Structures are given as structure tokens and as C-alpha cells.
């Protein structure tokens, strides 16, 4: 009998790889945003909203946030799997983290397209 825990890992390479790819995307976005902000002479409300009124900026910010949430899920899941041993408690925390991150996805769309 294969003894696998339902709230365990996927026993594979996929999450490991996604963790690195999402990290790279997020890092590049942060560097680009930081460079842009440094080049702006005075950053006020107008320049800030002008930056975020761009469709391309919407897309890349959303991509960044989605990468960030997936990255956070894998990271938090690993931490929970290391320190929380009872399967029931682990399941509850996992579900709460997933629901929170899904809510953040909806919230992000509202922020970017709704302001």
C-alpha cells in the first residue's frame, strides 16, 4: 500500500520549478518598477495613477501578483508541512490560505480595473 497523505506534496518537480519561475517574474517586475520610480523626478498622485492607467501595466501587474500568490502558496504550504503535523489542522490551514489567496486575486482585479 502506498502511504500518501492527502495534504502532502505532489512528490514532483512541478512546484519546485514554479517556485523558481514565479520568483524570477516577480523579481523582474520589482526591479523594473523600482528603476522606473527612480527615474521619475517627482512621484505624486498624478504620475502614479498615470503609470497604472496603462493597459500594459495592468497586465504586467496582474501577472506579477498572480506569480506572487502562487509563489506564496507554495512557500506557505512548505512551511505548514514542516511544522504542522496533524493532518486535520494542516488541511484547515491549507484551505484558509488558498481561500485568502483566491480572494486576493479577486481584490487585485478590483484594484487594477476598478479604480
Amino acid at each position, binding site marked *: 500500500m502506498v502511504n500518501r497523505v492527502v495534504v502532502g506534496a505532489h512528490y514532483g518537480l512541478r512546484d519546485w520549478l514554479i517556485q523558481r519561475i514565479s520568483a524570477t517574474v516577480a523579481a523582474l517586475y*520589482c526591479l523594473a518598477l523600482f528603476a522606473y520610480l527612480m527615474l521619475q523626478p517627482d512621484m505624486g*498622485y498624478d504620475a502614479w495613477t498615470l503609470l497604472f492607467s496603462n493597459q500594459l501595466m495592468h497586465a504586467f501587474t496582474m501577472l506579477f501578483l498572480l506569480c506572487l500568490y502562487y509563489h*506564496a502558496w507554495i*512557500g*506557505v504550504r512548505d512551511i505548514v508541512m514542516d511544522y504542522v503535523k496533524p493532518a486535520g489542522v494542516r488541511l484547515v490551514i491549507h484551505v484558509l490560505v488558498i481561500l485568502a489567496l483566491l480572494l486576493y486575486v479577486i481584490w487585485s482585479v478590483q484594484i487594477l480595473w476598478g*479604480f
Partner: protein
Amino acid sequence: MNKQRPKHLALYLIKLPLPGIVSILHRVSGLLLFIALPLLLLMLQYSLRSIETYTELMGILAHPLSKLLLLGLLWAFLHHFCAGLRYLAIDLHWLGDLAQARNSSRAVMIVSLTLTVFAGVRLW
């Protein structure tokens, strides 16, 4: 080979090496950033929604306690960023031996802390 048993380890002499410290801080900073996510999203929302909420946010962020919180989160971000770059370098087999592992850990600590101090000076 006759080893002496039981073996008593001098636990007070055993210290977590620097790469281990960087590693656990990578975890801690990542968790902190995850916990701060709703706060960061709220800040983004306030900064974009209207000039009123933007001004309100700037007022809140001018408070010394907010600055302290912001600086803490900034450290978490910088440490997570730098340590993450180091892990990517390790994955690409750029850091081969123990000396490189230790030196790069030292570099992560120095760079992230220095940048945090710089940011702190700029914040105040």
C-alpha cells in the same frame, strides 16, 4: 573501531552556520510578507483610488509607527529577494563549495541590511 558511547554533544557549542541563518530568515521573511499581503493590497488600493485616499494614505504612512512597520516589511522583502537570488544561483550550480556558500550568505546579509538602513535613512 571502538567509539565511545554514549556520545555527549556539547549542544551549547553547536551554532547554526551563516547559510542556515540566511535560510531560516528567508522563511521568516517570506511568511511575514505573506501575512502583510492584505495590508500591501490595501495600500495599493488607497494609493490609486482617488486623490483623497492617496492623501489619507500618505498621512497614515507619515506616522513613525507606520514607518517602522514599513521598514520591517522592507527588510523582509530585501532579505527574501537577496536570499532568493542566492538560491537561484545555487540551483544553477554557480556556488560550488563551502567557502562560496558562506561568502554568498554573508553578502546576502550585508546587502539586505545595508539597503534597509539606506531606506530607513530616506524614510526619516
